[in-house]
C-alpha cells in the first residue's frame, strides 16, 4: 500500500498529491510516468511524474478529474492509502545537447511540463515557457513556471488572464521574429501539440511531444498505448509505455491518436456520472 503524504488543490478540478513510494522516487526522472490503482477493483491509470522528493521518498502527481478513477482519487485525503503505484515507467525526456529550449504546456499538461522545465533550468539551459489554459479558473503552477523560466508567457483562450489566445500565438511570434530554439517540448492536449508542430514546421525547429494514450499495464505487454509514427512515408507502430512517452512531433499521426483517444469516451462519461451519483448517495 502507498500512503498519500500531501494533498494540494491547484484549482477546482486539478489536484496535486505526494505519494510515499521510495523505490519510484529514487529513480523517477522528468518525462516518466507511473501507473496507479485507487482501489482493488479499480482500473490502472497512467499519470506523469510531476516531481519527486528523494529525502521524503515521495512522488508528486497532478491530475484533473475527468473520469470515475480520478474522481475517486480526488476524494483521497492525506494519510489515505492506495493499493498500487508502480514506476517509474517510460523513457525520461531527452535533455542532452539542448541549451535553449521552449517549453509549451497546455492545461493539466503543464503539470508534466513543469518538471521538464525545472530539469532544463537545473542543467543550465535557457528556458522559455509558454503555458496556456482555457480560462483564469483553470490556471495552475504559474509561480512555479516563473521560478524556473527565463521568460514566461501565460495564455488564456478567453483572455480572462494573461494574454488572450492559445499557446501558438507567442510561439509563432518568436519564430517569425527569427528566434530559434534547439528544441520545443510540447505537453498538453493532442490538438494543442498538433498545432505546435504545425507552427514550428516552417522553421524546422525540432519538436518533442509527450503522448498520453490509453494504457493498461504500462510495462510493454498489452499494446493498448500504441501510436503510429510516419517515418520516411512508412507507417511504424510504437508503444508509448516503452518507446515513449516522448516522440518526435513531426512523426506522430495526431489524427489517429486523437481518434483512438476517444474510443471509450461514452463509457467514461457514463462511469464518471455513475460514480458521482453513487458518492452523492453515500454522502446523503
Amino acid at each position, binding site marked *: 500500500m502507498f500512503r498519500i503524504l500531501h494533498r494540494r488543490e491547484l484549482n477546482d478540478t486539478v489536484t496535486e498529491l505526494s505519494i510515499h513510494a521510495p523505490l519510484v522516487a529514487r529513480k523517477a526522472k522528468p518525462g516518466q510516468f507511473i501507473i496507479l490503482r485507487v482501489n482493488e477493483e479499480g482500473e490502472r491509470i497512467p499519470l506523469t511524474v510531476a516531481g519527486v522528493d528523494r529525502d521524503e521518498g515521495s512522488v508528486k502527481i497532478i491530475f484533473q478529474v475527468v473520469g470515475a478513477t480520478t474522481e475517486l482519487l480526488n476524494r483521497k485525503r492525506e494519510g489515505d492509502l492506495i493499493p498500487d503505484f508502480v514506476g517509474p515507467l517510460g523513457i525520461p525526456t531527452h535533455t542532452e545537447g539542448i541549451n535553449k529550449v521552449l517549453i509549451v504546456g497546455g492545461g493539466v499538461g503543464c503539470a508534466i511540463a513543469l518538471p521538464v522545465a525545472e530539469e532544463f533550468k537545473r542543467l543550465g539551459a535557457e528556458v522559455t515557457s509558454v503555458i496556456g489554459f482555457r480560462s483564469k479558473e483553470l490556471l495552475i503552477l504559474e509561480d512555479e513556471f516563473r521560478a524556473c523560466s527565463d521568460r514566461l508567457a501565460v495564455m488564456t483562450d478567453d483572455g480572462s488572464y494573461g494574454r488572450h489566445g492559445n499557446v501558438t500565438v507567442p510561439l509563432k511570434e518568436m519564430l517569425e521574429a527569427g528566434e530559434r530554439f534547439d528544441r520545443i517540448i510540447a505537453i498538453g492536449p493532442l490538438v494543442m501539440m498538433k498545432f505546435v508542430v504545425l507552427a514550428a514546421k516552417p522553421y524546422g525547429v525540432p519538436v518533442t511531444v509527450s503522448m498520453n494514450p490509453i494504457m493498461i499495464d504500462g510495462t*510493454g505487454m*498489452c499494446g493498448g498505448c500504441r501510436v503510429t509514427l510516419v517515418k520516411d512515408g512508412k507507417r511504424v507502430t510504437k508503444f508509448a509505455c516503452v518507446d515513449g512517452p516522448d516522440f518526435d512531433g513531426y512523426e506522430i499521426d495526431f489524427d489517429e491518436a486523437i481518434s483512438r483517444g476517444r474510443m471509450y469516451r461514452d463509457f467514461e462519461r457514463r462511469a464518471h456520472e455513475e460514480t458521482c451519483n453513487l458518492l452523492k448517495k453515500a454522502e446523503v
Partner: protein
Amino acid sequence: MPIDPKKHEMPTQDPSVRAHNFSEVALGYTAEVAVEEAKRCLACKNSPCVSGCPVNVDIPGFIAKMKEGDFEAAYAVIRKTSSLPAVCGRVCPQETQCESKCTLGIRFEPVGIGRLERFAADHHNSRVSERFNPPDFNGRRVAIVGSGPSGLTCAGDLARHGFKVTVFEALHLAGGVLVYGIPEFRLPKSIVAREVETLKELGVDIETNVVIGRTLTVDELFEMGYEAVFIGSGAGLPNFMNIPGEGLKGVYSANEFLTRSNLMKAYLDHSATPIMKGGAVCVVGGGNVAMDAARTALRLGADKVFIVYRRSMEELPARREEVEHAIEEGVDFRLLNNPVEILGYTNPDDPRDPKNGFVKGVRIIKMQLGEPDASGRRSPVPIEGSEYVLDADTVIMAIGTSPNPLIKSTTAGLEVNRKGGIIVGEDGLSSRENVYAGGDAVTGAATVISAMGAGKRAAKAIMEKLLK
C-alpha cells in the same frame, strides 16, 4: 477386464449455455471416473509418457496412487516436480506431450493424463489441507523476474530446497499470463491464486508493482544480495500485421483485449474497465491466444465471432480441445483467409458522427497452401481476385508477440537474438554470470508448460551453481 479403448469423457457445460458465461467449461472427473480412467494405464515398464512432460512429472507413480483411490498421495507425487498441477491439468497441450507418448495410445486413445492430474490437484485444493512448512533456509537468496509460469516454477523448486526467493511482478497481481491472458472459463483465477498461496507457504515472497528494468535493475538485484537472477518476464509486446486500418477504434491486440477482460475484470457487470462488446468480432490468428480471445468475445455478447487464419486446420497451432470447444460454441473458422485491410466508418456528411473512425469490416483474401517454409509448414499463398469484405465491429490481432525491451536495454552484457529473445544455454544461463532466463522472454510466445520446463531447468542449474 478389457481396456476401454476410449478415454473417459470430460464432462463440460453445454456449449449453448457456456457460450454466454465465464464459468469453467470443463467440469472435471468424479472420483469414480478418475479411478476408472487411472486403471486404463498399463503401467508399462519404460513409461514413455514421462519423457513427453517438460517438467518430468512421475506420471506412472501418480497414476498408481490414483488407481488405489489415494488422491492425496497422487497429488504429493505430482507436487514433487510440478509447482502448478491444477494449472497444468487444465492448460497443457497433453495431446502433443505426455499423452502423445502413451503406450496405450498406439492402439487406443491414450490415458487421460491431464484430466487425472487436474482431478488430483482439485481434490487436494478442495480440502483444508496442511500448510507446507518452509524448509530450513540454506543461506542463499535468488530473485525471480516475473510471476508467470516459468517464474513461479523456478521459485517453487528453489524454495523447496531452502533458497530464499523473491519474485518481482510488474502488475498488481501475481500469475502473469495465467491471470491476464488465459480466461476464467479455461483457468479459474481462484485456482491460480491458490497455487500462488501454496508457493507463499513455502516461503516465497512476491513483490508486486515492481518493474525490473525500471523500478530496479538486474544489477541492483545483485547489489541487494541476491546471488542469482531468473528472468521470466514473458512474451512482451504484441505484433500487428502492418496493414492499413490497424489504428482504427475497435482494433485490439489479443493481449489488450484479454487483459481488459481477465486482469481488469471487464467481463464482470459494473466493471470500471471499458471493452467493446457485441456486434461482429474478427480474431486474426490460430493459436491458443486467438481461441481465448474469440471465446471471450463470444461470452462478452458478440453476435458473431470469426477466427481468420491464413493456413488450414491442420496447421492451426492451438490446443485441439480449445479448437473443438470454440467450434461447438459457434465460432466461425475462416481458414486459409488473411486480412489485407481493416475498413473504417466515415460519414462524409458529418465529421462529428460518433461512429467515425470505428471499424466496420475487414477486407480478406483467400489463400492456398504452397511449398513448406522454414518452419516446415506449407506456406500460404494468396489467391488472386479472391478478396471479400467481412463485416466486423471489432478486430483482435492474435498473431504473436515480440520480447519486451525493458530488461535487455537496462542490463549490460545481456545478449539477445535477432528477434529480441534472451540467448540462453541448455540450463537457462544467459550471457551474464548468474543471470538465467526462460519462458517466452527466451522463446517468444509459447506454452505455459514449456515455460515451466524452462523455469525448472534454470532452478536446477541455479542450485548446482550456488550450492557447489
